[in-house]
Structure formats: structure tokens, C-alpha cells
């Protein structure tokens, strides 16, 4: 890996909800173009960590840098000051996020979902935004569905629209929060295929997933998380095939069983 600013760097990230210590010092580096899969049992803090990366959740302690800049804060003489909303919005617009439950705007058609933020947030030309949206829908295999409302699409199709909606912002980093967990088993494949294409095109991705097969095949780095800590991190074959830690072995044997 050439010596450049990592796309995402976490240093000792802590997060609590009241007495519940969800993240207990997470360290992680993601370099540009890498695909990192975050696996681990539910409640281990994977999703919370992902939501901290684009400031949907605030961090209690530690540092979280995206392309070298702290997320949601500015460093001023040794303290972190929360950024004005305008700045937070600008930084978020560079980070795409795909949710477990798709979260498409239900009162807008597929194409309206795609062009909304580019036109309103990035002030892109309307016609150009629609043109680009059509191309993106085509890329995720949904040309012809431009004018469908989300309720008329299958789960797999909705998730593919959601991925295209994030891509329409031309993000530098994509976060996936269990993108296939709410899907019927037979629809998982079509979403993973889109994500695989995206990874091959060089997109930097952090994927929280239970799809061990996908992680093994696509991820440059697989990180196993448990009780708010990264237990083990490394190439897929190693972490998934020959894990060092007993806790990782136990988890993987259960998931693959």
C-alpha cells in the first residue's frame, strides 16, 4: 500500500449509550480502493462503528478521520469543536451509506430518489442529474424501473436503487450496514453482485455483513469485531480460514455451520 492518507482511520474510538459501552477503543485503517468487511456477532458494535464514520452517531473518545479530516469536528488547539451543520452536511455528502432496511424515500420514484440530493445538495444541473441517474440505474440492472415507487419494487431492487442513490453523490467512500440482512435469501445474490462490481471498479468500501462468502471473495481485509473491539484483522483467507483467536474461530464455525 503506497504511503498516502488513509481513506478512513480510527484511533481508539469509544462510544457508550449510558452504561452500555458499545465501542471500547476501535482502531482501523482503510486505504483508498480497499474493501474492508466487518464481521462479528450482533451487538458487537459493528453497525455503531459504521454510523460513527459518517457522524450519524457521535464519538465519545478517540479519533475518527476520513481522508485525514476528523468527522463532524475540527481540531482547534488540542480540542475538538463540533462543526457547523453546513460543514457536516458537506462531509457526509462525500460518504455514501447503504442501510439494512434500504430507507428509500417512499413518496418518490426510483429516479427521483436518485436525483434528489445531487440537485438539492450539490446543486447539479437537473437534466444532467437525471441523465446520470438513468445511467446508474442501468448499471445496477434497473433500467425501465425509473418511474416505479419503492413499494412496487422487490427488496433486492430497492436495495439496488439505494446503492445507486448513494453513488449518485459520487462518494469517495461507501459504507454498507448489513445490506442483505433484510432480504429474502434468493434476492441476496443480485445485491452482492452489484457490490462486487462496485468493488472491482475501485470504490473504497466498508461493509458490515454476515455474508462470509462475500467477505472471503471480495474483501481485501476482513476484521472480526467482538464486544466493541477489533479482535482480529487481516486478509480474508487468514481471518476466515485460519483464525488466530479462539473467539474468531468459534464465531466462524457457528456462522459456517
Amino acid at each position, binding site marked *: 500500500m503506497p504511503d498516502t492518507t488513509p481513506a478512513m482511520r480510527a484511533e481508539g474510538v469509544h462510544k457508550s449509550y449510558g452504561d452500555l459501552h458499545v465501542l471500547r477503543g476501535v482502531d482501523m485503517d482503510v486505504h483508498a480502493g480497499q474493501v474492508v468487511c466487518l464481521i462479528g456477532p450482533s451487538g458487537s458494535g459493528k453497525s455503531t462503528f459504521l454510523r460513527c464514520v*459518517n457522524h*450519524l452517531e457521535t464519538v465519545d473518545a478517540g479519533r475518527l478521520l476520513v481522508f485525514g479530516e476528523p468527522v463532524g469536528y475540527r481540531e482547534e488547539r488540542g480540542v475538538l469543536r463540533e462543526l457547523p*451543520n*453546513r460543514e457536516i*452536511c*458537506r*462531509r*457526509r*455528502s*462525500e*460518504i*455514501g*451509506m447503504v*442501510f439494512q*432496511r434500504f*430507507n*428509500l*424515500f*417512499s*413518496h*418518490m*420514484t426510483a429516479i427521483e430518489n436518485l436525483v*434528489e*440530493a445531487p440537485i*438539492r*445538495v*450539490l446543486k447539479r444541473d437537473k437534466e444532467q442529474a437525471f441523465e446520470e441517474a438513468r445511467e446508474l440505474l442501468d448499471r445496477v440492472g434497473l433500467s425501465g424501473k425509473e418511474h416505479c*415507487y*419503492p*413499494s412496487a419494487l422487490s427488496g433486492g431492487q430497492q436495495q439496488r436503487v*439505494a446503492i445507486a*442513490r*448513494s453513488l449518485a*453523490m459520487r462518494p469517495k467512500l461507501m459504507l454498507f450496514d448489513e445490506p442483505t440482512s433484510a432480504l429474502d435469501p434468493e434476492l441476496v445474490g443480485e445485491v452482492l453482485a452489484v457490490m462486487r462490481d462496485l468493488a472491482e471498479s475501485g470504490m473504497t468500501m466498508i461493509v458490515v455483513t454476515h455474508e462470509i462468502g462475500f467477505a472471503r471473495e471480495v474483501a481485501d481485509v476482513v476484521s472480526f469485531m467482538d464486544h466493541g473491539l477489533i479482535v482480529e484483522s487481516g486478509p480474508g483467507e487468514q481471518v476466515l480460514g485460519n483464525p488466530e483467536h479462539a473467539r474468531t474461530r468459534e464465531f466462524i464455525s457457528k456462522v459456517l455451520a
Partner: protein
Amino acid sequence: MTADRGPGTGMPPPLRVLPRRGARRWRTAGAVVVAVLVAAILHSLWVNPRLDKQVVLNYLFRDLTLSGLAVTLYLTVLAMLFGIVGGTLLAVMRISKNRVLSTCANLYLWVFRGTPVLIQIIFWGYLGALYPRFDLGIPFTDVVFASVSTDILMTPMVAALLALGLNEAAYASEIVRAGILGVDRGQIEAASSLGMNTGQTLRRVILPQAMRSIIPPMGNEAITMLKTTALVSVIAGKDLLTNLQQVYSQNFQVIPLLIVASIWYMAVTSVLTLFQAFLERRYGRGTADVGSRGTAGRLFGIARWKGLKNA
């Protein structure tokens, strides 16, 4: 669907589906009973010599009636507009993280929902008794740039509008707030993750979806407002009911004149109901079944025959 079934298609012929045994018979019997009862009541009114139909007809389109109707409509429309705009503002203030804003909104609701609207109308109408003049100047000094008598500003119409509008805003705010809270949190997160700011999220994502649950109770509010406007009689407002009450206090034709009023109230309510149906369809985009009922269904609450069969 049925075209690709039947002989020669390899598909079995479609089954005929009959309604539940006796269902149609009971429905027909019920309809007949209701029709007979309604006819009997209408007939008894029609032939009743004590109900002077001529008086009803005479007053239905009188200037006095129509000008009263105009006042009623004017107050209803403007007070509702005022209430919806103010109510939306109050709702957003109430769910705001800013404590000053939410406390102000709570205080407003406490005052305007805590006192009867009748008292509020009288209060605004007789504001001059409390504050005879309005001064524009610097508070706690004697510097005054402009001063005007309260009675010039506070005409009965202004007072009525202010009273009804401010009161409505308090009630409307709870309807809007319920609508906003009903929108899935995931929608807000998706909008945030796309870099949309609070205003954009509210205008483009939350409110359009909240409208679906806001419209039915807001339709109720509008229809209630139509009749609440009659309370402005206490400050010499000249609305529909007040004008007709003045007539019957002189000619004692109480029932015919109240029927005149009822005919107009029902006519306006019908228009409002249709407008509500239009709005529901408009904001129901992206959801399945919204308006399977026709015009008559909207007005009288009966489903279209086709709708019933499919149900």
C-alpha cells in the same frame, strides 16, 4: 388475467367465485329498510304544515344569507391557513433540540389550548378595554415613534381572524407533530447520509410523507372550524348563523332559518370533503390503496359497488 386461462391454454379454467350465501340478500334488505326510513323522515318534513318551505326558499339566497356565508367562508379559509402555517412552525419548534424553542411552543399550547376559544374571541374583540392604544417605541422608556388606537386596528373581522387562527395553530401543531413523528426514522438518516440539511430533510422528505397522516385530522379541523366561526357573533361578527339568528329573533321562523343555515353548512362541508379526498390522493403517491372510494363514497361513507366486490 382470465384471457390466458381456459381451454387450449394448458391452464385450468378460472373458478367462479360467488359471494357468501345470503350476503346479497341481507345487503338488499338492509338497503330497503334504510331507504324506507329516510323516505319516511323526509316525507314527514315535506308534508308538515308547521315547516314553512316557502320561508326556507325565500331566505336560501337572500343577500343577508349570502353575505353571512361569505364571512363564514372567509374566516374558515384564512383561520385554517393561519392555523396550518403556525401549527407547522409550532410542531417543528416542539420537536426541536433547542430548549428555548420547545419551551416557547409548549407555553403557547398551554395558553391557547387551556382557555375556551369563546373567551379568546371575546378577549381579542375587547382588547381595547385592556390596552386602549398601541405604541411603537423603545420598551421601558418614554420614546414613542407611532401610536394608534386599538379600536382602529382591532375591527371585529381582525379580532375574529386572530382569535380563530391563533387557537387553531395550537391544535394543528399537535396534528402536524403526530404526522412528523409517524415518519420512519430511517428516512431522516438516509437524508442525513446524503448530506441534506435539516430544512431540506423537513421540506423534501419528512413533511411530504407526514401529509398522509396529517390530512384526515386536518380535514376534521377545517370542517369544525366552519361551524366554530359562528362564535364570532359575540363580537358582532356577521357570519352565516349570526345573520340568520337575527332574522328568526324577529320573525320567529326558527326551524326554517336553521334549515337554511344547515343546507349551506352541509354544502360547504361537502366541498371540503372532496378537497380532502383530492389532497389524500395527491399525497398518497408511492403507497398502495388510498382512494378506492368514489365521490359519493367520500360524502356518505359508502364504498362503490365495485370496491365492495373486491374487498
